[in-house]
């Protein structure tokens, strides 16, 4: 019963923390740009406001357009709940391994791109088309990273990978370094952050994610915004649980270990958010056709990591 409670707590935790993380990133960026910026709790207020508003639906929007936000949200939430945050070996952590988690996010993206094309406006189409271009490189890069990690840890199961990373067998490895760099690059692209996409703009032809969701309003938009926040949280949790697994409560741990896990997780999220804000402030957005070079580099790094692991176990 306790196990189920921990799993439930994790699901609730990621859902509750996700808007806060977005708020922290925005606040930090604002401070770095010498603005005051809205409160870190502003995303909650935005979501509450959107949820209360009526939905303005385009005349020719289909049923797919209406269920897509819930599907995207559900797929992202399930994926985020399966990544270890404060504890490993949760009750349902075996129901999907890292490959399946990536593919679940892919399902969310699939429906988001379809929803972008549903109303039949040019903005929706451009967003969908570019999103699938980015995905067509980011997903293989991500899988190559998964391969590298799986070959190091001997498992694609995130709990096992995290448990292995805590243990003393890991040491410094070249392939691990390559995987980290590639994973950060993929995370930036997948979350539509600068330099790939700009989450703050709304009316530029460079935009990808925002163009797809242009026709959404009210509760549908709230679901999509929440899913985007969850995705950011997922990627930071993923990087944290693999490359900074300290403080993670092991399977079947007591309340004290879980408390430590939760504290260290909060600290890691805060760190991740601040680093992202610093990174975004120091770099300019790139042209859309430079993105393949960026992601191609991530793919090559991932492939190199995997290749090194294939060639020798000592890398």
């Amino acid at each position: 019963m306790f196990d189920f409670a921990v799993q439930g707590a994790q699901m609730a935790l990621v859902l509750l923390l996700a808007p806060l993380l977005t708020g922290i990133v925005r606040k930090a960026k604002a401070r770095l740009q010498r603005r005051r910026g809205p409160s870190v709790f502003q995303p909650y207020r935005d979501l509450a406001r959107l949820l209360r508003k009526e939905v303005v639906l385009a005349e020719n929007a289909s049923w797919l357009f209406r269920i897509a936000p819930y599907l995207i949200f559900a797929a992202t939430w399930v994926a985020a709940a399966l990544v270890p945050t404060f504890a490993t070996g949760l009750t349902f952590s075996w129901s999907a391994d890292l490959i399946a988690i990536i593919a679940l996010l892919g399902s969310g993206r699939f429906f988001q791109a379809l929803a972008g094309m549903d109303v039949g406006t040019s903005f929706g189409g451009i967003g969908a088309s570019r999103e699938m271009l980015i995905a067509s490189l980011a997903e293989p890069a991500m899988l190559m990273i998964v391969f590298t990690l799986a070959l190091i840890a001997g498992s694609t199961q995130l709990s096992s990978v995290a448990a292995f990373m805590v243990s003393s067998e890991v040491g410094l490895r070249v392939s691990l370094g390559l995987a980290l760099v590639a994973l950060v690059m993929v995370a930036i692209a997948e979350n539509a952050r600068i330099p790939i996409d700009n989450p703050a703009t709304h009316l530029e032809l460079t935009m990808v994610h925002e163009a797809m969701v242009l026709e959404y309003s009210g509760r549908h938009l709230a679901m999509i915004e929440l899913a985007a926040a969850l995705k950011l949280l997922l990627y930071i949790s993923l990087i944290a649980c693999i490359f900074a697994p300290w403080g993670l409560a092991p399977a079947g741990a007591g309340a004290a270990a879980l408390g430590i896990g939760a504290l260290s997780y909060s600290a890691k999220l805060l760190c991740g958010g601040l680093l992202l804000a610093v990174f975004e402030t120091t770099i300019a957005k790139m042209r859309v056709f430079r993105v393949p070079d960026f992601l191609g580099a991530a793919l090559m790094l991932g492939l190199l990591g995997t290749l090194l692991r294939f060639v020798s176990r000592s890398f």
Partner: protein
Amino acid sequence: MPVDLGLECVGALLGVAALALAVGRSRAGSSVVYGASFILCTIALASALRALIGGGIAYERVLPLGLPWIGAHFRIDALAAFFLVVVDLGGAATSLYALGYGRHEAAPMRVLPFFPAFLAAMNLVVLADDAFTFLFAWEFMSLTSWALVMAHHRERGNAQAGYVYFLMASFGTLCLLLAFGVLAGSEGDYAFAALRASHHAPVTAALVLTFVLLGAGSKAGIVPLHTWLPLAHPAAPSHVSALMSGVMTKVAIYGFVRLIFDLLGTPSWWSSMVVLTLGGITAALGILHALMERDLKRLLAYSTVENIGIIYIGLGLALAFRANGVEWAAALALTAALFHVLNHSLFKSLLFFGAGAVLTATGERDMEQLGGLIHRMKLTSVAFLVGCVAISALPPLNGFVSEWLTFQAILVSPDLPQWGLKILIPGIGALLALAAALAAACFVKAFGVTFLGRPRSEAAKSAQDVDRFSLAAMGLLALLCLLAGVVPGFVIDGLGPVVQSLVQGRMPAQSDMPWLSLIPIAASRSSYNGLLVLCFIALSGSLAAYAIHRIASRALRRSAPWDCGFPDPSPITQYSAGSFAQPIRRVFGAVVFQARETVAMPPPGALAPSRLTVEMHDPVWEGLYAPVGTAVGFAAERLNHLQFLTIRRYLSLVFLLLVLLLLVLAVWL
């Protein structure tokens, strides 16, 4: 005995084909033929399923047909039973679909007699147990499908498609003939049992592999032998396209597995490198071609090429593991490949049915003329969407499971000792991942442009959903896609005896794993539970929807699209199939297809429209087929002179040849 029942079904299907000649012209003709085919396929399916679940005990039968001193051998073992399930499941679904779709056929006599004969031929290939019967059935399958491709021979491009298909099919059969010839050696016992028992030298094995890759590979559509496939599959009526893409390519895979895994014995490790390389290239190039297409059926045909590549990657991994004696890993890879065989037969048939429904409703295959069909063809769009999600390898549907298993097989391959494989396999993994991601982009395009948005033509505006039979067939396949995705354990256990008979190992039994999880090696290594993932998504999605509608707001207002304040009423301002693929064409196509875009912009004030011209080159066609075609034409031109010689010269030529042959004999002996 299943083999007798199978043969009776084949006979009955041939009888139906003969009957079709008599009743084809009458009004009820198509219902009679397709109804009978449906019943016969269902019987054959049930019998094959029983043989498969029964643990794959082999049943044999020798009939006094064919060459008098050989007879015709037939046999059902686990491998044949599995492929019979694939063939007859596809056949039954297609017949059901055609009960409705076939009514619109303009020239029924060009389709009805050949359809049951085609089904019979595919059954016969799988049942055959000697080289003669196998080749006869293979050629029969090629010819009947060729006749079906030529059904609408007056439509533009179809005659050429039929010609190319005919050439490639003859070439393929010739290669298989040579493969069997090399296998049998000079003793020449052509029964499969004798071929299996004899030992093969490395040179023989290499020759057989080459010939089988050429022969079965050209039928399956591996690059560079795929060129006929995107021409011929779309040219046939849509239910036949489904049968050719979903089922006939699987019969070709069967030919490969039967010859290489079963008859040839233990492979050498380099053969797996050849198969893996071809598989990886096929997967990536197939899906890139599919992305560039604007014709819905051609897009689906190219995507078949991609999926064949994925299957060959699984088969190549199985060969690599088997050559190194790692049976459990070979079992994993082979299970993944065979699972993908089943999956692809399900969702590709489903997608071709959907394309056929769109064709019936609008008369269009060109996606640039479609759009908005989700409002008018509600059930078709749901089924097509299921097929798109499944083929894009997204959880929780079936396509994901088989690709996941292939990835798991790749992840156990660093232990292989050969350096060539160590360096090749990560690259193949990357190609597979790239193909999977591009497939998602491709099917977002296929569904998004065809079914979503606003209609781009009058025909798309006035479309109606199709008849009940077609919908039932699509619904059935969509349901099977879902089932194979959420409870894959039963499929894997069903494949157990097949894999056991081919690589002497099998995956652990899955159906008694806790919560029906999929655990290919060990729980600490990797596991996946499609059922649970589906439940989680359904639960959290509906919970969120319920809570929001209950607590926050359920108000909804329809209004004009927003589109940043500048909505354009003309539907041609939407993103089209070409514009959707443009970024990918720029990134990948510039290298692979040497794609060049030129924009002709008229000077300011001129009334001429500006034009965007895209130029693309098919590397395989221009690099391989065009030179061969030119060479053949050149040689024919030269040899043409020989037709106009005097009798004196002919006689001297004959004499010279005679001398030459005698010399050869003298040197040889």
